[in-house]
């Protein structure tokens, strides 16, 4: 490649944040290589069925991103896992799974998040009882109405969602709120009601965090229009009954009484966990925040600037974020990277 490596940027991860960043770089005339470990771009967006708050079709939104990739002729190296990043003499050396090394003037980290492994909350029985599933599992099921939540071809009668699975839970070491699961839960509850109008739906929550525009309205709608029952209380355990449905034990903390319900499906709203490998701390000195996400230098003045000079952050790798958040962060990080390459930090 003829271009001076000092003027090139490596983008790690081709989720929405990585794509937005790479597009912005390209449009500004900066060369960017995008590394993506999966076989295609899109990140977690490829796994969702409908998006909050407006329940837009995720496939359509994804297509929009893919179009941008195409129009801007982005070079996405799919199937390429970045295994190590080092900084020597002001240049970043990016190593991939196949041992290939390339040098860059700046790196834009957009490697996203990992879904919480629900089996770690064994009391909910995920992986043990087939009728206990996670929110991503539900997204997948909803893609195909022939499966959906049907049980022996019958519509389910009762479905319960559990909020904060793997978030706000010191027992699993995650004290932070994952931000997107509350609204996902509302969105999915509505989707279930729409698909199976006779099905009773309840959500067990600790608090509801409706922070984004249109979120609170959707929550109101879920109660008033769709009759979804929001119960404040933590589910303590789940056990199967004779016919395979799930008996849920919880405490209604508003009414102050224990509660037992039997549901056809128990859906666990799993949160986000940091996807930053610890090795980046050792090889680069990348610092992480208390929750383990990549930390920035100054929350107010320098969001998106990691503790390493020349390494920028975008999307859920820096903490729980929605798609629009991630896109904005991608663009902002691209601009910061350009400033850095031009020596104007």
């Amino acid at each position: 490649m003829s271009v001076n490596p000092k003027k090139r940027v490596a983008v790690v991860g081709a989720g929405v944040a990585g794509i937005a960043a790479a597009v912005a770089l390209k449009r500004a005339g900066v060369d960017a290589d995008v590394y993506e470990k999966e076989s295609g771009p899109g990140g977690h967006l490829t796994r969702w069925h409908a998006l909050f708050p407006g329940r837009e079709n995720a496939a359509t939104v994804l297509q929009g991103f893919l179009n941008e990739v195409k129009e801007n002729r982005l070079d996405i190296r799919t199937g390429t896992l970045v295994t190590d990043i080092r900084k020597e003499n002001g240049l970043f050396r990016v190593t991939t799974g196949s041992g290939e090394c390339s040098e860059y003037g700046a790196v834009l980290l957009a490697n996203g998040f990992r879904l919480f492994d629900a089996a770690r909350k064994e009391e909910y029985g995920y992986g043990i009882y087939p009728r206990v599933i996670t929110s991503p599992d539900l997204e997948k099921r909803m893609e195909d109405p022939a499966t959906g939540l049907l049980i022996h071809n019958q519509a389910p009668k009762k479905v319960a969602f559990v909020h904060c699975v793997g978030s706000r839970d010191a027992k699993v070491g995650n004290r932070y709120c994952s931000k997107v699961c509350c609204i996902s839960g509302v969105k999915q509850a509505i989707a279930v009601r729409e698909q199976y109008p006779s099905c009773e739906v309840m959500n067990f929550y600790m608090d509801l965090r409706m922070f984004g525009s249109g979120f609170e309205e959707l929550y109101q709608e879920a109660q008033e229009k769709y009759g979804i029952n929001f119960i404040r209380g933590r589910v303590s355990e789940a056990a199967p009954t004779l016919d395979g449905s799930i008996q849920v034990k919880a405490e209604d903390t508003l009414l102050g009484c224990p509660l037992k319900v039997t549901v056809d499906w128990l859906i666990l709203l799993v949160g986000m966990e940091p996807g930053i490998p610890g090795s980046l701390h050792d090889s680069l000195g990348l610092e992480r925040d208390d929750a383990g996400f990549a930390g920035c230098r100054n929350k107010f003045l320098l969001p998106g600037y990691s503790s390493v000079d020349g390494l920028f952050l975008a999307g859920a790798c820096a903490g729980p974020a929605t798609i629009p958040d991630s896109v904005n962060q991608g663009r902002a990080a691209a601009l910061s990277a350009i400033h850095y390459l031009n020596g104007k930090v």
Partner: protein
Amino acid sequence: MNFTEHPAFVFPFVVGMLFIFIYLPVIYVTWLRKNSLADFKTILRSIFTTNTLKAVREIFSECLLHRRIFRYNIRLGYMHMSLAFGWFLLIVVGKIETMVFTHDGFNPPYLPVFFKYFYPSGIPDTFKGRFFLMIMDLLLILVLSGLFLAFLKRFRSRVLGMKRTTKHIFPDRIALTFLWFIFPLRWFAESVTAGIAGSGGFFTLGSGRALASFLPLEDLLLPSWWAYSIVLGGFFFALPFSRYMHIFTEVVLIFLKYWNLATPERQNAYADFEINACSRCGICTNVCQLSADAGITHSQAVYFLRDLRYGTPERPVLENCFLCGRCSQACPVEIGIDQLRIAGRKRMMNAIAPAAEMRPVVSANGEKVDVLYFAGCMSHLTPGIIDATREILTRAGIRFSVLDDREEVCCGRPARQAGFADQARSIIARTTALINRSGASLLLVTCPICYKVFNEEYDLPIPVEHHTVFLNRLMTERPSLFRKSSLRMSYHDPCDLGRGSGIYEQPRSIIRRTGVLVSAAHEREDALCCGGSLANLAITPRQRTLVTDSAYQMLTAGNPDYVVTSCPLCKKTFAAGKREIPVADIAEIARMMLQPEEILHPEKAGEAELESEGQEICQ
């Protein structure tokens, strides 16, 4: 000079000694009066048995030789031994020396202590005289070497195997200062005396001559003996209010132990002797994971006992403890630390808790079965264990039912622990009735806590088995049911199963039968706590995670395929973190190692497997 003249400097010592000999019996009698009639009867029954001799043997090996401390660390053991045994011998040999000299057993008590002042050359010009001079000097060297180590321990404790030393309180510091000065001053006074007389033991005479070269020995003679006497007397006065109370108290404690008293739930004399027998050696703080991993340094056994001795421990001290038993296991005095702490918590609860109502739901499903499985509330939070146990029982063709399958049946421990003794009793009665109605010949549990509760609180006509024991037996009797693999597994001893119930071998045997056992740094009696113990009511989740992660690291050091344990709480605690190496209960491993159905029942091959879910009775 004649010893009958009573020189004035002996008085501080004499007064201190009189104080101790009056104070100790008085306080011991006060404690003993807390004993009930039954306690005294117990003592009477054992006092004229060989137990008393055994007690004497233990007093020799523990109060003087400190054998258990030697086992912890040789240098630390030597330090304690040289101080205790050396001092003891100085007293005994000194007494013999004076008796040989005066031909009279009833010389004044200060004579052996200040013998050199009166007779610097010892028993004149005889072989006996020279012999005693040498022995007494050797003993003084022994004690001084221990003192040197004690001094070193204050500044370089690691040399003596201690990562942490006890934080001392004011009376301890006073007594410690006196103690540190006793033997150097004795050496000084004896050297000065020997230097003036020009004769004495090889050590004191040598140093006396050296001192004579630059010190006016004559002027120092009386002051040095005064100083020695004053620190001795001072030490005796400080003793009952400091940790050195343990010196005499441990002796009585050992007798009481051999006379079959034990750490009580209610405060009796035994507890008082235990509390005062703690030497604040600090070994407990060195084995406690709270200090090692979570930076908690206020609630360890030594501090809890100290607070208990001087008053009532604060709630954070009572509550910040896993009751893991590591300190009781390591304590050289064998103090029943956990029981004392539980008793302390009970008193606290009685003082603060209003009597809330506990409502257990109990129901009957009186079917006749062979094995009755009680999963317990903890296993209900780890359904994988229940599932695995059911499947193994089913595949083994054992008729079983699950006692607490659909309805809540409680063992009664939560109520008892919260201090609601009556409710606990009625829960136990109802659960006992349910168990009896089942007609089962075995009660199977998968929770070490349940196991202890059923063994200790229940009076059942059928045996109770923990699943490690049960599965190991099943594997012995029906080896063809299971297969062996190359899986490498490390094993975590749950506190309540290991130290609590002494079950170490069966789980390891199960692992060896189904795979390869990878050993870990802390095992069996020395096993670490997983950090999940519900007994700690004060620790923060963060600190808990620190303890758990560090224990997990030990278990994964050998890079096994699985970390295996046999307690739902341990499993949950370890599995909650982000784990590269998975954690499994021994039942889940055993299920994984069941022979495939076809090999067991060729005729059944191809048949759809029965849905075991919800099946209560399996033929």
